[in-house]
């Protein structure tokens, strides 16, 4: 066996142990191993700084990497320390944004780096590995979001939580918005006409006045909602204390966390303004999320982008809390 083949086998064997890739077929692991690059970094090396353009996702083979957030007034808050088998930088890998936190090596580390350009090439070839990885990253992002939200919930202490959510069936049905309007929303720019039609007819439209609870923290969400007009606020409530963790305006989704991982909703979502919603029941969500059609692929991107926004938004109150200490 050549040295190269042995290194590749090592990479495949390692990838098979990474929880993110658990159960992924060997052929897909081999494809990933082929496009990842191995790097060894000493302690103290900065992998990327907060605000750097995202160029790669890192899988930790060995060592430890610290993730920290820089705050105004020369302050820093450490968010987590990650070790073998854990993944970082997967969020900007998908949305092409900037790194929201600094990553630095605290114990000499070996990493496998998946470059954004290589991942994009996989996506543009519609390679099954790309889509399998995207769905899995959605799961990881969802778990990370839950962790961040749980930290915020803990900062509020005890107290009664969310009010009961309104049943979907009780929402007043509405006709669809004008298709030209929908196409002007940035979220839907990537949909071709056929895919957009498939998406818009996958659920039903509903109008909702301001102040209605649509998703309750701690209860499973029965649908994924996409805001067409208006705005929905995502909050964590404990007694008379609350933290806003996100605001979904036109083109943004909410209520999907339960449908991705089967756990109860981590937030309460209520209409901040009167709102026109596309309601995608669980079966429609699953058909779109797990499908292999063009529409499914674009929908997956919509959910991803939304998860990334949700993660960034959930960091904001963390930063404010830390900055106010």
């Amino acid at each position, binding site marked *: 066996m050549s040295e190269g083949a042995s290194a590749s086998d090592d990479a495949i064997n390692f990838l098979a142990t990474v929880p993110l890739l658990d159960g992924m077929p060997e052929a897909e692991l081999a494809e990933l191993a082929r496009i990842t690059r191995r790097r060894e970094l000493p302690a103290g090396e900065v992998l990327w700084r907060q*605000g750097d353009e995202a160029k790669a996702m890192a899988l930790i083979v060995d060592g430890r990497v610290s993730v920290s957030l820089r705050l105004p*007034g*020369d*302050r820093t808050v450490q968010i987590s320390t990650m070790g073998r088998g854990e993944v970082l930088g997967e969020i900007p890998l998908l949305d092409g944004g900037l790194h929201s936190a*600094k990553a630095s090596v605290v114990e000499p580390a070996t990493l496998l780096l998946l470059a954004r350009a290589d991942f994009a090439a996989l996506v543009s070839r519609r390679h099954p590995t790309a889509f399998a990885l995207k769905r899995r990253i959605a799961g990881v992002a969802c778990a990370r979001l839950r962790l961040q939200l749980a930290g915020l919930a803990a900062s509020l202490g005890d107290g009664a939580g969310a009010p009961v959510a309104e049943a979907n069936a009780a929402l007043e049905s509405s006709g669809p918005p004008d298709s030209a309007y929908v196409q002007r929303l940035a979220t839907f720019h990537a949909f071709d006409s056929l895919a957009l039609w498939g998406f818009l007819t996958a659920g039903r439209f509903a109008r909702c006045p301001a102040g209605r609870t649509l998703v309750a923290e701690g209860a499973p969400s029965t649908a994924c909602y996409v805001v067409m007009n*208006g705005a929905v606020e995502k909050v964590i409530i404990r007694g008379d204390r609350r933290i806003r963790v996100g605001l979904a305006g036109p083109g943004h989704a909410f209520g999907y966390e339960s449908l991705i991982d089967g756990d109860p909703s981590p937030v309460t979502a209520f209409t*901040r*303004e009167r709102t026109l919603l596309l309601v995608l029941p669980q079966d429609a969500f699953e058909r779109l999320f797990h499908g292999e059609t063009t529409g499914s692929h674009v929908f997956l991107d919509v959910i991803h982008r939304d998860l990334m926004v949700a993660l960034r938004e959930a960091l*904001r109150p963390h930063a404010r809390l830390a*900055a106010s200490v």
Partner: protein
Amino acid sequence: MCRVLAYLGEPIALGHVLYQTDSSLVRQSYSPRMMATFLNLAGFGMVAWDPRSAQPEDPFTYRATTLPTFDRNLRNLAGKLAPTCMIAHVRGVSHDAKEIVSESNLHPFRFPGARVAMAHNGHLREFARMRYDLVPYIRPELAQRIEGTTDSEWVYALVLSQLEDPFGLPEARELADATASSLRLLREIRARHGIDTSSPVNLSLTTGEALVATRFSFDYGWYPDEDTLLETDLPYVSLWYTVGGEYMERADGPAMTASDDPRSLLIASEPLTVDTSTWLEVPEYSMITAARTPEGIEFETRDLDV
């Protein structure tokens, strides 16, 4: 849409924040990073307080419809000034012949005799339909001082009219309450006319000693099907802040220095640096109030539920 900078704290190098940082206010006039389709080329305005100047309770005022990047007078003056409080504003208007670019439409507004100055980032949709419904809520002595054609100047007159003494020196709390009352009145008048299109109202107000800033929108996210401004308006209009000892050039770029108690607060429509890591986003539907104290500044963020 526009870009605004508001400041309260230790003396700050004006030339640094207007011209020198890699996303300075003047750069944001022609190269904003958080606006999709607009530029802010309809003029520059500023009020700035310097306690070492003659009549320190009155701010230095500058307004010009010329592009600030080519304004040598402003650039030279900014290099010599270090105010302890200021609002600066680059004005953006829609690309429409109906828009009037004139000195009287430049922010911040500060009526003769008034101690409060105000700048606005946003616009009240269909303002022409609601303008004269505001008259009963604006004191006549203020209404007669309105010179320009903007919705913003009317909002300014409305806020002043909610103060116990529109020509007095209100504390931060009174200024905040007057701002919230004004937003409530605007909501009522919009409802009376059935105006329900998304209308951002990010206001910055200051007296030189107290500062109030809102990040707020009426009917956020609600647009008529045929709306042409849709793509510009989609994100909630941004507002950021950074707080600490002093804002200055440091080894790793401009940032606030460390301080046990905050001594300076800098608020901007978008961070003044490409690296946003030392800035925090002001939450949507909220208001920041700040006041000078013997130790530095006292500031808080509160929900704005009007």
